[in-house]
């Protein structure tokens, strides 16, 4: 990364560009109402007006143009009308479609003019179908708005004497990209406008696959050197950090600007190319929270690539996150995905596996609270004097009930129209159907949260009540009711002597396996949803590990008090797949062995094993290589997904005490990375408390 990029990064971090933002959002509601526009036409009008109101910002040296100046996405319906429109329906999260993956190659290969031609042809063919016509008109209006915005940028560049940039902007996004620069610029425009229209968690797809042909041609023709390409890529990555504070998310940084690298082609051939390695290198040099990087690997991935990836992990950004193709692809196929599509998967905002351009999936409709299922089963079963197998049956029943409740709530899902988003999904313009009406894959994802704590609780009960007979059921229940007040000895015994997930101890691991088998079975038993999809079980926890413990309004399941693994009321649960907080484990090998036991063929929604390694691990090339071996071991053991962090506890503690000194400290939170000092205190504390493998 050259001096120019270093200085651009500093300016973006300092937020200089934010002073150019407009103070008030635009208004479109009045004209939508006056004209009595339909929902799709209102969305198109919104995008048109947003594009028109964008002020052109080109820095003197910018080569990737577009800086958002609009502060917000204005409403297109009054609250009353929105309530009427959505009465009796379930809206997912904020409402607008989010967290699906675009097929950006449609844009790069055809250009917006090409996509517009497709829309026009379909419109002629389906002229008798008012719904199709309305959708296609809305899509065309959106595309024209984006092209006009780009034309204004081009004129400004020309006026500034920036003929180099003007040439690019006059070409894309209207025309197909011919060069790496044009491809990046086209992507920057069209990606940003998705956000301007209110959709969110917009990813960048299989970046090394869609972009490589352009870079390869440039390199071959001598238009670009590797170094020049790296600087262009760095500028693109930095640009993704300009507007991200305007993007919605549960916490700052949770914006889903992910990209996926590596893996195999739809034909099954190795897909790693020079751009794969370049992205890893440039992301390391840029060291900002966007884009978040996923790397698809397998047991055969060479240590050289994993070492380059480990150099990125070393930066402490919390990525790349690894997915194991050996496990993910068969799991997707087992859940009804065509093999070619499964091989083309990307990782969504956090960790779910989705197919670019082919899925209108809602990958996170909620999470089963395993601790609640276990807690209810234990309380009822122990009170009834049941044996352990009966308690496990109760857990299964509880998981089923929760899955059914979550899925039923989404049986009335309402997805708002998204005519502009549809432009980049396969088949929408071709068939005159908005993405909200569904695509090839229309599945829902449900995660299982708090799994390690729940398995540990069951393991402690089996060990102490049913095998050792050293603990009476009533005694345990009353101690839990009192939050172990006055029962510190019992709590310590449960916490320290019980079998724990993460130590490769079959006594705990078999129960972890059972919990996910229960979840998979419950999802399968539910059958098809009204949208024609299935329920995909997953191992993630998102924010649920905090919500479950704190009676958050976003949780359907009630708060769980003190639990049988010795956890006190209010303490958070394990995040994703990780040993319970505070549990001492021997280290990463045993932890991988524990989580390798889950039947991942039945679990296809993703959710990573989450590991923190002390930053001291990354000191020299030899230890970098050993860390690469650890990642390869993750794949060889048949685990599904891995999130590896470099973390220094002393630094985190200091950052909590003196946030002013650590403004750039980046940590992995759940499926994303954010600035540590910008996280709410409970998330900071959880990260500090999360198990750290002390290696010195």
């Amino acid at each position, binding site marked *: 990364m050259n001096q120019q990029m270093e200085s651009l990064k500093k300016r973006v971090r300092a937020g200089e560009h934010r002073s150019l933002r407009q103070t008030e959002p635009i208004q479109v509601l009045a004209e939508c109402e006056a004209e009595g526009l339909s929902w799709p036409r209102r969305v198109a009008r919104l995008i048109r007006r947003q594009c028109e109101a964008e002020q052109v910002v080109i820095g003197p040296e910018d080569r990737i143009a577009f800086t958002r100046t609009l502060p917000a996405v204005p409403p297109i319906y009054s609250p009353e009308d929105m309530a009427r429109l959505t009465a009796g329906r379930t809206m997912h999260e904020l409402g607008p479609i989010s967290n699906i993956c675009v097929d950006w190659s449609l844009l790069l290969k055809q250009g917006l003019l090409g996509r517009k031609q497709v829309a026009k042809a379909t419109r002629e063919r389906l002229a008798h179908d008012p719904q199709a016509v309305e959708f296609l008109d809305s899509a065309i209006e959106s595309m024209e708005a984006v092209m006009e915005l780009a034309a204004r940028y081009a004129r400004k560049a020309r006026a500034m004497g920036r003929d180099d940039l003007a040439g690019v902007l006059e070409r894309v996004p209207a025309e197909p990209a011919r060069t790496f620069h044009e491809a990046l610029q086209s992507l920057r425009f069209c990606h940003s406008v998705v956000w301007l229209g209110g959709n969110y968690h917009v990813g960048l797809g299989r970046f090394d696959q869609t972009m490589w042909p352009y870079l390869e041609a440039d390199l071959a023709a001598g238009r670009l050197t590797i170094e020049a390409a790296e600087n262009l890529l760095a500028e693109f990555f930095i640009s993704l950090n300009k507007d991200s504070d305007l993007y919605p998310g549960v916490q700052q940084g949770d914006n889903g600007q992910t990209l996926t690298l590596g893996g195999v082609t739809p034909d099954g051939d190795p897909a790693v190319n020079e751009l794969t390695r370049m992205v890893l290198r440039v992301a390391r040099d840029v060291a900002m929270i966007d884009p978040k990087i996923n790397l698809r690997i397998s047991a055969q991935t060479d240590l050289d690539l994993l070492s380059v990836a480990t150099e990125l992990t070393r930066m402490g950004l919390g990525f790349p996150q690894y997915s194991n193709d050996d496990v993910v692809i068969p799991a997707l196929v087992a859940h009804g995905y065509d093999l070619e599509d499964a091989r083309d998967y990307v990782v969504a905002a956090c960790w779910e596996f989705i197919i670019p351009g082919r899925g209108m999936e809602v990958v996170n409709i909620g999470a089963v609270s395993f601790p609640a299922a276990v807690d209810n089963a234990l309380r009822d079963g122990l009170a009834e004097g049941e044996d352990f197998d009966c308690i496990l049956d109760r857990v299964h029943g509880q998981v089923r009930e929760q899955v059914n409740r979550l899925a039923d709530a989404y049986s009335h899902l309402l997805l708002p129209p998204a005519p502009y988003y549809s432009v980049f999904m396969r088949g929408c313009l071709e068939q005159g159907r908005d993405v909200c009406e569904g695509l090839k894959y229309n599945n829902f994802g449900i995660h299982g949260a708090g799994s390690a704590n729940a398995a540990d609780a069951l393991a402690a009960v089996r060990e102490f009540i049913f095998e050792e007979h050293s603990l009476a059921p009533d005694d345990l229940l009353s101690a839990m009711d009192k939050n172990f007040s006055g029962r510190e000895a019992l709590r310590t015994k449960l916490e320290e002597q019980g079998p724990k997930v993460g130590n490769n101890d079959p006594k705990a691991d078999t129960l972890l396996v059972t919990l996910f088998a229960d979840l998979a079975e419950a999802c399968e038993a539910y059958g098809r949803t009204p949208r024609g999809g299935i329920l995909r079980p997953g191992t993630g926890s998102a924010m649920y590990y905090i919500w479950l413990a704190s009676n958050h309004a976003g949780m359907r399941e009630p708060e769980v008090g003190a639990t049988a693994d010795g956890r006190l009321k209010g303490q958070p649960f394990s995040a994703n797949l990780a040993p319970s907080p*505070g549990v*001492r484990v021997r280290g990463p090998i*045993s932890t991988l062995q524990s989580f390798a036991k889950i039947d991942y063929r039945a679990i296809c929604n993703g959710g990573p094993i989450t590991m923190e390694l002390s930053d001291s691990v990354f000191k020299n090339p030899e230890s970098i290589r050993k860390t690469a*071996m650890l990642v390869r071991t993750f794949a060889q053991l048949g685990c599904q997904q891995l999130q590896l962090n470099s973390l220094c506890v002393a630094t985190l503690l200091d950052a909590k005490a003196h946030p002013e000194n650590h403004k750039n400290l980046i940590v992995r939170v759940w499926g994303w990375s954010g600035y540590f000092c910008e996280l709410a205190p409970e998330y900071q504390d959880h990260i500090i408390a999360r198990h750290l493998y002390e290696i010195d």
Partner: protein
Amino acid sequence: MTSGVVFDIKEFTIHDGPGIRTTVFMKGCPLSCTWCHNPEGQSRQPQVIRSLAGERLAGQRFAAAELAALLNGQADILRLNEGGITFSGGEPLLQAEFVAEVIDLLKGVHILLDTSGYGNQLDFRSLVERSDLIYFDLKLIDREKHQHYTGCDNNMILNNLKFLSVSGKPFVIRVPLVPGVTDTDENLAAIAETAAGLSGLLYVDLLPYNMAAGSKYEYAGMEFKPDYDEKRPLNVNTLLFEQYGVKVNVE
């Protein structure tokens, strides 16, 4: 079947030998080096560690077969990743019979013995024979100073080093650099002279003093009493080794 006391088992110990390794820390050490950073390794008995993270018992008794089964569960992974098992401590020689029995039960995995060299020669031979690589600590050549700073005579250590050099096993001499104690030119020259010409010696590893050495004492209910100036700059004089033709590394 013998049993032994282990104070920790740590995985992915990347500084304890080649490849991915798991290190078994044997509890109990005959030496009492004033700079020891593993005070919970000194006593042979299990003891309570009280830290910010709560209390825990350091020290678990294992039957040899039980420990071997646990380690064999990882043997394939360690082998595939150019690594193996490291026996460290404390001092493995103090529980030589147990360690030997465990090693005999392990399934073809690289063994590294990390030792102070302080132990009777039969025990030392027994463990060296079973190991693929030996990390041999050498602290002070001067007999009186060794006695003063470690509480032990170094005669047995130097004799075992001689045996090691004729055993045919590859080994590394590791020198903890303690400011003003082991890092003097006099001591380093004496170590270099001792190391020169030892067959099987791969290199000498100089381990700079770690300011965190005293951090565990309070948790172990012990007092850290360094009789040297921790903050004094280290003398990392590698030239002395090069003069004797001894390959040297600084970690």
